[in-house]
């Protein structure tokens, strides 16, 4: 019963972000601010994680590929497909669920506890639309962009480590990346990252928006935001894989 109530509350919360919105002129600045907070501020962590994941993927694939009958370029192909299909969208979004999700829940939760959200409501401003909608839009723009960056850096990491360690030559790696390339995989990765961005931003905002109590509850809301977002991302990953591939 509690689960059904929570789902109902979540969907009512989502609808409140788009019903009785504030005038359009209010949103562009807010969306840009959130894009900087969500996107630009996550650049470094995404860059580090994806580069290292790309390097490790390349080395482990090369290590396991011992048959002389299999061309070395297959390492590049495997790295490309793993990166596009899973590592770039899913791994990046799991990392972002931790960083962005806890940040959103903490920020909105502390605004709730300190009555800043009440102050917005009393003024006759739709607080959920004013505070949450720009975050959802910004996340849905910036997280797919970060996933594209992650995919590029991951492949670049594989390329570099292959050359540095001699595991695979640059030519073989690039040949492997080009070989049998399906543009649909890029579309699939972007679709996944868009869905994950929506889930992370809405679930985290929801957890923050309904925080009641004090500092302890803000911490709990952030933790729940991260765990619920990660579970939702993984679950959506499975469903999308089943539907789209």
């Amino acid at each position, binding site marked *: 019963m509690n689960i059904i109530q929570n789902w109902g509350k979540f969907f009512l919360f989502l609808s409140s972000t788009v019903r009785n919105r504030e005038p359009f002129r209010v949103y562009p600045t807010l969306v840009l601010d959130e894009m900087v907070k969500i996107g630009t501020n996550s650049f470094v962590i995404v860059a580090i994680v994806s580069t290292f994941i790309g390097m490790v993927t390349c080395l482990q694939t090369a290590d396991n590929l011992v048959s002389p009958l299999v061309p070395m370029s297959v390492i590049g192909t495997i790295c490309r497909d793993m990166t596009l299909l899973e590592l770039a969208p899913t791994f990046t979004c799991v990392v972002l669920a931790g960083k962005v999700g806890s940040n959103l829940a903490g920020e909105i939760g502390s605004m709730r506890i300190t*009555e800043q959200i*009440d102050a917005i*409501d009393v003024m*006759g401003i739709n607080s959920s639309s004013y505070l949450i909608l720009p975050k959802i839009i910004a996340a849905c723009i910036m997280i797919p962009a970060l996933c594209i960056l992650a995919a590029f850096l991951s492949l670049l990491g594989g390329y570099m480590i292959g050359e540095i360690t001699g595991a695979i030559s640059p030519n073989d790696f690039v040949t492997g990346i080009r070989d049998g390339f399906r543009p649909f995989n890029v579309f699939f990765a972007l679709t996944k990252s868009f869905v994950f961005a929506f889930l992370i931003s809405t679930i985290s905002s929801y957890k923050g928006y309904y925080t009641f109590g004090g500092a302890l509850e803000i911490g709990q809301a952030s933790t729940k935001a991260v765990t619920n977002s990660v579970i939702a991302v993984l679950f959506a990953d499975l469903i999308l894989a089943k539907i789209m591939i």
Partner: protein
Amino acid sequence: MIEIINIKKSFGDKMVLDGVSGTFENGNNSLIIGASGTGKSVLLKCIVGLIQPDEGDVLYDGRSLYTSTVSEVKKIRREMGMLFQGGALFDSLSVAENVRFPLDMLMSEMSDQEKHDQVMHSLERVGLEQSANKRPSEISGGMRKRVGIARAIVMNPKYLFCDEPNSGLDPMTSIKIDELISEITDEYNMTTIVVTHDMNSVIGIGEYVLFLYQGLKEWEGDSESILHAKSQPLREFVFASKIMERLL
């Protein structure tokens, strides 16, 4: 004038407000008082619409907050100003930006210069024009309350609500805040409702006092008659302070 009609509110099994009614006249400082946990803040939140009551209605000059259309409710809300217990200032904005926030959001027809003038006028009114560029974290608790008042009055509201304006303040600052609220009420001819448990405020600015006890309206009257009221819970509340006891 604000009328509250038979407001009932419970949280789970706990009945917090059990049919509270009252009338808050225009141009008056009306106080809702009572011990901690008697439902003062819940009543105030029901009055401003932050908490939906289970039963009852609130009328703003005859306009219902709970049965009107969304656009009418928005109109009523734009005539409200509220001072929150902790100030509820936006940490990411400066003092002046905090005060300007309602103007930016709701008064698109005003020019930047007009908004600036209005903000500075409000800040001057509370004596904080020198702190316009400071952040909320850089100012004291009393100053935060004054910024909260400046933000509440920047839209020239008809109704002002103050939730525990004296909490966490020293007696001197507390009296200054009370005086400021009283002066502003007269100046803007507003209907002001203050939730407090501070007897200094009751004696100092209370023109109409509503005493809540266990979710019910136990007593109502003015600040002079409160000292001679017969209600036992009210007497216990008023004379809990040794200073008040000695005054009589």
